[in-house]
């Protein structure tokens, strides 16, 4: 094995948690059972790495094999970096019938045409997701396996999730994706976060949304819990109404874990007491950022406890409804840019 391979193996071993190392390695399948038995997993990571390096030399494994191990680890622990969502638009007639083999061939073909030194690995996960690992090189250097880009896509779903992609390489990846999935274009979905499953659930609408229906919802049944008859809430009715509204806006149960929502304001400054600022022609630019360990649950709590007013402002409810957490807000002037999200009131 050459130096980059050794480097990569060392890094991957360092990243895999010690208690998961054995299962991950057996899952990898490049190390025989007998060899696995010979490794003492209670020793330090450093000693383990040395031992595994020897085994890999013995089995004549190459960088390619080590990337497989890295992929297994990233699939198991996807929430280590920032994930960005992209949306494919305008499908061709052939788009619904693209299957895995076709996609695999096409993607590799198109990407290798765009760039000479590139190493692509595609793996299908059990939940129908396609995982792609791309190690980029350039015209003269070999692919750099230390800084790979990971792409996750569900066929026929029009959403793509990408992590560790530099802006220089974005057009190349975009083009390869568009061509191989048979769509016309790809755009930024304005959604990012550390939790891949959360982004996916939010965009695929796989979380518990609440709608007003004729049937009594579990929501209503839950709130009818029996309490002490001597304790009475005076404003119980308005509280349940607030809770219902908050749940309708953000969903019920465990919500997808988003870390932040960013609003970029490019609106005119309006304050009757402050003439100098109001009279200025150019928009007043500022960025409002909400951060939390679970933003949607925080917002829901704000609305249901009455800290934020209900009905929830469209600015906040747009996060789950539109599935994005980056907004540019401009004044709604007729004929202005199409980026206008909503007039600022």
């Amino acid at each position, binding site marked *: 094995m050459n130096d980059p391979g050794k480097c990569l193996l060392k890094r991957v071993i360092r990243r895999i948690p010690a208690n998961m190392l054995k299962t991950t390695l057996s899952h990898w399948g490049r190390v025989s059972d007998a060899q696995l038995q010979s490794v003492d997993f209670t020793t330090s990571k450093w000693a383990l790495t040395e031992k595994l390096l020897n085994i890999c030399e013995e089995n004549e494994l190459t960088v390619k094999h080590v990337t497989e191990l890295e992929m297994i680890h990233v699939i198991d622990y996807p929430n280590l970096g920032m994930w960005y969502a992209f949306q494919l638009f305008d499908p061709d007639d052939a788009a619904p*019938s693209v*299957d895995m083999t076709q996609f695999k061939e096409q993607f590799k073909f198109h990407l290798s045409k765009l760039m000479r030194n590139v190493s692509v690995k595609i793996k299908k996960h059990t939940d*129908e997701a396609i995982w792609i690992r791309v190690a980029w090189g350039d015209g003269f250097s070999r692919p750099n396996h230390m800084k790979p880009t990971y792409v996750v896509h569900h066929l*026929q*779903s*029009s959403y793509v999730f990408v992590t560790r992609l530099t802006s220089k390489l974005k057009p190349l990846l975009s083009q390869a994706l568009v061509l191989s999935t048979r769509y016309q274009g790809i755009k930024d979905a304005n959604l990012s976060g550390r939790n891949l499953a959360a982004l996916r659930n939010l965009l*695929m*609408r796989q979380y518990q949304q609440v*709608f007003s*229906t004729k049937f009594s919802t579990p929501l209503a049944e839950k709130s009818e819990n029996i309490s002490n008859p001597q304790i009475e809430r005076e404003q119980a009715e308005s509280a349940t109404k607030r809770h219902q509204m908050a749940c309708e806006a953000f969903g019920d149960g465990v919500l997808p874990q988003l870390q932040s929502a960013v609003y970029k304001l490019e609106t005119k400054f309006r304050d009757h007491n402050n003439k100098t600022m109001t009279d200025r022609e150019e928009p007043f630019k500022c960025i409002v950022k909400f951060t939390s360990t679970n933003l949607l649950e925080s917002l829901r709590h704000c609305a249901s406890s009455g800290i934020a007013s209900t009905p929830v402002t469209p600015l906040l409810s747009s996060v789950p409804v539109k599935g994005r957490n980056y907004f540019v807000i401009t004044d709604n002037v007729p004929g202005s840019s199409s980026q206008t999200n909503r007039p600022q009131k």
Partner: protein
Amino acid sequence: MERASTKGVLGHLSLLETQMRSCRGKHQQLNRTEQLKAKVEALCVQKEQLKVELHTLQRLQKVRSTLDGNGADDEMDDDSENADILQLMAKCARLKDLLHAHHLIGGYDVVKTRQDKGLCITLTTAYEGIYLDTYHLEMDLSPKLRISRHDIPPFIPLNSLVETTTQTALRPFLDFLSQHLNAFTGRKQQLKLVKEQHKSVEVMESNVLCSVLVLLVRVPERKLPVLCILDYTDHSRSLPTGVKFECDDEPPNFEQWKKSCRILLERPVHKALITMKSLGCIV
């Protein structure tokens, strides 16, 4: 006590207070258990009494019913006019129930929301008599009919459905959407059933829309693996539009496979596999 004194007068006072509280609590608890025991005894006695009463009442009723066994019919004939009205009322109630049932099952369930400014439509999906997922659409009525919120998965082409059906006719749009959703959940359910019922068949590939299904089946002779590719191009149906077989070794028994193809095209995949098994095409 010594520990409390180090904290000063206030600490001591609070300690005394908590002691008093716990003391009162214990006393109360004892009192309460005695009360509850007495109550249990009283209730037991009452229960016995009620049992005896019920028994006698039942016996009395039995005796009475044997006495005037066919007297009831005569009464009905006397009051024939009254009975007619009663029957009509019963019929009316039944029809109302039916109407309600139609509303629940046949019709779409629509609720007004946001002070009559919006509608919330519930679409239920079912496959082979089993209720599956429920989907919702929330619509704005003014200034124009517009979908404001929904929980339909993004791979269902909602936007193109809206475009193809006209804005004014809500019903055709809903019919179309409902057909689409039913087909989707039907395909999903079929896939689930295949995985559950047919352990010998391996599902090689499928996708989120369940529009492609690749199965690995085995032929009885030599356990030869054959790939069976089902293509559901028409997304509003839960039956495949195309079936293909692929085999590495040799072209399979042509006549037999043609028949299998037909079975797969006509029946839901999990049932078709059962038929194919019984015909001996696959293991």
